[in-house]
């Protein structure tokens, strides 16, 4: 009796191991579709707008690539908190008055179906002297003073998109601000008027307007035909979370506008496809696409360039952290990259530069 129980257990163990491994093999291959549900089709209606115009206020986040990478490396690498990195702000030959910092900011003019207009300021750059000059060039400073800009949408907390917030708040301290979930305490403190001397960062104009934090995993309407979607991306320099904008332009399709797109442009387009009604027709893209910002490369980026044509994008505006090498390869691959004019310190015409505009609709 004891022997046959031992024998049964032995057979059970042999069969169990075989069954476990066989099930692993079968379910990972031939039975895969049984277990993995089909992808959702987007059904969230964000409404429709007439047109979207995007003006590149500044896309030159910094002026010397090697310098900014060296700053991060000297501070201890890409994991170090951006609020304690001593960014090079003097003696940089290509910099703005020796300061390597520039910034990213875009002004979005949204025309609704009834003809009314909304203005969204996407990000506020880094170096406040540089941003003051850019805002003046595009008239953003006057728009802020006259309260013509409806909202400041901060795509994410990175230094080149957020540290210039003083340039916005000095002109309009009560502007409504929307941030993605993930902002750290230092970010909220900066809005309240804190300073971070190590990082040469300050804000002397505390924010007095409404502040909204947008959670990930859902579509957040902003205006008719306009919404934001947040992602939980963990990014270099101890930053968490990014949001992108999506617009539904009448008779054209959806348009995705981003700050840096750290989550990846394909991920953003797929999220739009699975959440937003009409997501299978992506008409246009604009913004930083974060592919080769330091002119580095990875075969994964070639995967992206090979996959992007299948989304049927008709207008591809990109700049800033997209990288010139990426733009060059995209153009060779036949993607509809919109060229720029290389003015106001933007280096090449390969993509949209400072002062350039793109219209969807």
């Amino acid at each position, binding site marked *: 009796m004891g022997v046959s129980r031992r024998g049964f257990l032995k*057979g059970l163990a042999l069969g169990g191991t*075989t069954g476990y491994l066989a099930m692993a093999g079968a379910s990972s291959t031939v039975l895969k579709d049984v277990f993995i549900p089909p992808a959702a089709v987007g059904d969230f209606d964000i409404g429709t707008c007439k047109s979207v115009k995007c003006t590149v206020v500044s896309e030159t986040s910094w002026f010397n690539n090697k310098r900014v990478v060296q700053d991060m490396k000297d501070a201890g690498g890409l994991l170090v908190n951006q609020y304690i990195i001593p960014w090079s702000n003097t003696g940089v030959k290509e910099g703005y008055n020796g300061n390597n910092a520039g910034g990213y900011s875009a002004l979005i003019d949204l025309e609704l179906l009834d003809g009314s207009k909304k203005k969204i300021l996407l990000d506020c750059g880094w170096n406040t002297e540089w941003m003051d000059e850019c805002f003046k060039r595009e008239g953003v400073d006057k728009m802020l003073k006259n309260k013509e800009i409806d909202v400041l949408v901060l795509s994410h907390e990175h230094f080149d998109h957020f540290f210039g917030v003083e340039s916005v708040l000095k002109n309009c301290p009560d502007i409504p601000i929307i941030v993605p979930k993930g902002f750290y305490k230092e970010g909220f403190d900066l809005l309240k008027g804190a300073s971070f001397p190590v990082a040469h960062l300050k804000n002397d104009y505390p924010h007095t307007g409404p502040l909204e934090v947008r959670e990930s995993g859902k579509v957040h309407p902003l205006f008719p035909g306009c919404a934001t979607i947040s*992602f939980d991306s963990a990014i270099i320099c101890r930053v968490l979370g990014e949001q992108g904008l999506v617009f539904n332009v009448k008779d054209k399709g959806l348009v995705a506008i981003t700050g840096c797109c750290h989550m990846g442009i394909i991920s953003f387009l797929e999220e739009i496809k699975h959440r937003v009604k009409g997501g299978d027709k992506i008409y246009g893209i604009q913004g930083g696409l974060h592919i080769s910002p330091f002119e580095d490369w990875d075969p994964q980026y070639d995967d992206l360039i090979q996959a992007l044509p299948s989304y049927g994008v008709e207008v591809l505006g990109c700049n800033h952290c997209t990288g010139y090498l990426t733009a060059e390869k995209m153009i060779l691959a036949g993607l509809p990259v919109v060229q720029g004019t290389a003015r106001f310190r933007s280096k090449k015409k390969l993509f949209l530069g400072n002062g350039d505009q793109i219209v969807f609709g």
Partner: protein
Amino acid sequence: MDENKALEAKKSWMDINWPGFFAGLVLGAGLFYITIRIISALMFSRTAA
């Protein structure tokens, strides 16, 4: 490992209890199914990065 035990262990592999084996096949397959359900629930995050 000890050589005598190794030889004994090797012999023990030779006689298979077939009812036990087939019961084990089903049990093993079921255990794998439970494993993947637990793991995918633990790793789940809609916007995990």
